[in-house]
C-alpha cells in the first residue's frame, strides 16, 4: 500500500430530483487499499459506487481518480471495473467473449485477448467453461466470470456492488477469502459495497459506514469496533448487535445505574455530572455471567440459543440483553443471572444525538 491517493471524493453531493442521496461525502482511498462500504438498505452505497463508475453524475463536489478530476468524464474513460450484484453478464456472449469484451472494444489483436482470457480463466478457475453461455453456468461460476471480466482490465480501481449476496453461505465465505487474496495479488485498489458487516470486517482495510447518504464513521475495522463514534455505528458493527440501555450517572460518579437491572461501572475520563442520563452500549461478548451476589446487572433468562461453538443468552425485560457465551451454558429459562462488564468496555452515547461520549 502506498500513500498515493487513488480515489478522492471531496464534498460530494448527489440529488435524485428532490431526493438527497449523498450528503457532503468526503473519502480518500489510497492505492492498494481495500475499502468496504457498509450501511443499511437505501443508505446510498450503490449510489456512491455508481458515481465512482460514472453511471451517475454527482450534483456537487469533486471526484478524482488517480489525481484527475472525473466529475464529467464518461464511464468508459475512467478506467475502473465494476462487478454488479446481478453480475450483468452479457447473455448472448460466451464466457470467453464476456471476458474479452473490453479488449475487443480496444481493438486488441485476437491472439492477445485470447491469451489474456486464458490467463484470467486460470486465476478464476474458469478454464473448462470458456465456451459456455452464462445461462449454462451456476451462480458461483457466473460470479467468477463477473470477477474475471473485471480482472482482465487491470483497472485503476475495482468496484464491487454486493457481489456475494446471491451465493450460499459456504460459497460466500470461500469467495470472501478469494476476492481478498486476488486483491492482494493484483495490488489492486478496491471499493466493496456490502450490507454484511462481517464481510466488511473480514475483508477490508478500511470501513466506511454510511447512513441516509452521510458517512457516519470511517476507519480500520477494529477501530470502528473498539470506538464507534455513534450509537448507530456501535449497533451496526459487531454481531450479535450491541445492547443499548438507558443509564443514569450515580451520585458517586463511579457507576451507571440502569433501571430495573442494576449498575455497571462508569468508564474513566468522562465528564458527566451525577444524575445525567446517557445511552450505554454493552457488547454481548463483553458481558460476563458471574456467580454469586454483588454489583452488576440482575436479570432472568428468557431463552438460550445454541450455535454449537457458542450460546446466546437473552434476558427478560425491555430491553432484553443479549449475552455471548463461549461454549455451552447450562442456564435455563427463568434462571436468575448476574452480568458484569469491565469499565473500559462500556460505550457511552449522547441520548439525543447518539454521539460517542468520552474517549
Amino acid at each position, binding site marked *: 500500500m502506498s500513500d498515493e491517493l487513488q480515489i478522492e471524493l471531496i464534498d460530494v453531493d448527489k440529488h435524485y430530483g428532490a431526493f438527497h442521496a449523498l450528503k457532503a461525502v468526503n473519502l480518500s482511498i489510497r492505492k492498494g487499499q481495500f475499502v468496504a462500504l457498509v450501511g443499511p438498505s437505501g443508505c446510498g452505497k450503490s449510489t456512491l459506487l455508481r458515481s465512482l463508475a460514472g453511471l451517475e453524475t454527482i450534483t456537487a463536489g469533486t471526484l478524482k481518480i488517480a489525481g484527475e478530476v472525473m466529475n464529467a468524464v464518461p464511464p*468508459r474513460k475512467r478506467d475502473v*471495473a465494476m462487478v454488479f450484484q446481478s453480475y450483468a*453478464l452479457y447473455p448472448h456472449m460466451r464466457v470467453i467473449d464476456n471476458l474479452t469484451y473490453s479488449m475487443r472494444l480496444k481493438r486488441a489483436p485476437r491472439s492477445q485477448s485470447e491469451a489474456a482470457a486464458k490467463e484470467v480463466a486460470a486465476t478464476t478457475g474458469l478454464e473448462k467453461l470458456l465456451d459456455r453461455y452464462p445461462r449454462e453456468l451456476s451462480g458461483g461460476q457466473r460470479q467468477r466470470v463477473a470477477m474475471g*471480466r473485471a480482472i482482465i482490465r487491470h483497472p485503476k480501481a475495482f468496484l464491487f456492488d454486493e457481489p456475494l449476496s446471491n451465493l450460499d453461505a459456504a460459497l460466500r465465505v470461500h469467495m470472501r477469502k478469494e476476492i481478498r487474496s486476488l486483491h492482494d495479488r493484483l495490488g489492486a485498489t478496491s471499493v466493496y459495497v456490502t450490507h454484511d458487516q462481517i464481510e466488511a470486517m473480514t475483508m477490508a482495510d478500511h470501513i466506511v459506514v454510511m447512513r441516509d447518504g452521510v458517512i457516519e464513521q470511517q476507519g480500520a475495522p477494529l477501530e470502528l469496533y473498539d470506538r464507534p463514534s455513534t450509537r448507530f455505528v456501535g449497533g451496526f458493527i459487531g454481531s450479535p448487535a450491541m445492547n443499548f440501555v438507558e443509564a443514569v450517572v450515580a451520585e458517586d460518579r463511579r457507576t451507571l445505574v440502569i433501571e430495573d437491572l442494576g449498575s455497571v461501572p462508569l468508564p474513566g475520563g468522562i465528564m458527566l455530572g451525577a444524575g445525567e442520563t446517557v445511552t450505554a452500549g454493552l457488547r454481548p461478548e463483553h458481558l460476563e455471567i458471574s456467580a454469586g451476589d454483588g454489583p452488576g446487572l440482575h436479570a432472568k433468562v428468557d431463552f438460550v440459543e445454541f450455535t454449537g461453538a457458542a450460546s446466546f443468552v437473552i434476558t427478560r425485560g425491555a430491553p432484553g440483553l443479549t449475552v455471548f457465551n463461549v461454549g455451552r451454558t447450562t442456564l435455563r429459562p427463568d434462571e436468575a443471572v448476574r452480568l458484569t462488564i469491565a469499565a473500559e468496555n462500556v460505550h457511552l452515547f449522547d441520548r439525543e444525538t447518539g454521539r460517542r461520549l468520552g474517549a
Partner: protein
Amino acid sequence: MTLEWRNRVLVVIALGLAALYLFPLYWMYVTSLKTGSDIFATPPDFLPRDAKWGNYGYVWTSRGMASYMWNSIVIASGTTALTALLGTGCAYVLARYRNGWIDVALFLVLMLQVLPASLMITPIFVGFSQVGLLDTPRLAVILALTAKTMPFFVVLVRATFMSVPAELEEAALVDGNSRIGAFFSIALPLARNGILVSAILIFMQAFGEYVYSKSIIQSPTLQPASVGLNSFMGPNTFEWNNIMAYAAIYVTPILAVFVLLQRRIVAGLTSGALK
C-alpha cells in the same frame, strides 16, 4: 363428469369454433378450384368435382397479378423497413428514460393507435397532395402506413427493451463502450427476437392494407393486390372461382409465413424475448 370427459368436451368445442372460424378460408380454396357452373350448384359441393388448377394461371395472367403482387411487396417491405428503423430507436428511448415528457410521448403514441384509417385518410390525402407526395404514390402510402403501424410496433418493441436489464448496458459502459456502442452490441442483439416478430406482424398488416392504397394510388400499375382484388369484384361479378383464386394467390404466401413462424411469433409476444 370426469376430468378426462371434460377435456374431451372442451376439445370438441375448440375444434368446432376453429372450424367455424376457418370455414371462409376453406371455402375460398375450394371455390377457387371449381368451374364456373359448379359454384352455383345447389346443394353446394364441399369438394370440387374435378379441380381446375388452371384458374390460378388464368387469373395470374389475365388480371396482371404480377404487378399487383409486386406493388404489395414493395409497400409492405418499405413500411416494415421504415417502421423498424424509426420505431426501434423510439421504443428504446421510451423504454430507458423515465420522465414527464416520456409519459406524454407514450400517451400520444397510444392515442395514434386509436384513430381509424378511414378517418385519417382525408387529412393525409390533403397534406400529401400539397407537398407533392401524390406523384410518388407508393412512397406516399408507405409513409402513411408507417405512421399507422408505428404505435403498435413501438409499444411491442418497448416492452422487449424493458425486459433487457439496464445493468447489462451499464456493464458495457464501464467496460469501455459508448452509449451508442452499448445499444448496438448489447440492447439490440438481446431485443432482436422481439423486433423481428413485431416486424413480421407489421409486414402482414401492410401486405393486406387497403384503405390508404385505394385512396392514394390512382394508377392501376402501382396498385397493390388488395386494391386489384377489389376492382376485380364489380357489381355484376359472377367469376367467383377466379376471384377466389386471386384471393388464394394473395394470402397463401403470408399465411405460409405465419404458419412457419407462429411458434416464434407467439413466443416472442409472450416471453421477454431474451436469449
